[in-house]
């Protein structure tokens, strides 16, 4: 089995963290999706609405923590799938590298969108 040489840890920590972040995300995703899709509605969202919301530090903190938990949970989930299906250590390392580099780029893009201080538009 190629599994033996691939990794030294049992994955117990990531297994545990997947459930912890999952439990947090349960509430975060219901709040985020509920507010944007049911209460505000996608058709009522605009640049000004978005920056007004992100000007509130609580909203900023919520969206940023949601970003971190969601990307960690997603990357960790894909890692589990890679571990299950890619047995050859070299290919697994290649797949994990693509995953983590890709997720880092997505994280930076998300951080830029949430953290950058935007200016409202005066029409």
């Amino acid at each position: 089995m190629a599994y033996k040489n691939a990794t030294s840890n049992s994955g117990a920590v990531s297994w545990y963290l997947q459930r912890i972040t999952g439990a947090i995300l349960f509430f975060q995703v219901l709040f985020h999706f509920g507010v944007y899709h049911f209460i505000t509605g996608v058709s009522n969202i605009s640049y000004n609405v978005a920056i007004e919301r992100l000007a509130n530090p609580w909203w900023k903190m919520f969206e940023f923590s949601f970003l971190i938990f969601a990307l960690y949970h997603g990357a960790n989930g894909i890692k589990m799938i890679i571990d299950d299906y890619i047995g050859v250590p070299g290919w697994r390392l290649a797949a994990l590298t693509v995953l983590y580099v890709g997720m880092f780029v997505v994280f930076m893009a998300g951080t830029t969108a949430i953290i950058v201080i935007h200016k409202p538009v005066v029409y």
Partner: protein
Amino acid sequence: MYKWRGGMLSWILHRVSGIGLVIFIIIHIEGMFHIAKGPKAFNDVIAMYNTPLFKILEIFLFAAIMFHAINGIRIVLLDFASGSKYPKPLVWSTYIVTGVVFIIGAYFLWT
């Protein structure tokens, strides 16, 4: 091959919806990144989201989120609470709760 038994379909659907949600979050962050490019770029993205195609995708997204979230609760109950005593009722109640929440939610998203 796998033996087909209770929870197997849930396991597959959890992975499939999980992969779908990862693909979604990449697209979503790419879209929201346009806020850094100014009002026109951002509002153009929102205008694209308000087309019928994206309305249908939104309902698929809602289905994936609800199944993954509710089935995720089932997994946590199975692993940490006394859910392991009631594995089968947990599986079918996952589908019932997801189905009810989806039908009600999809109605409000569509109308």
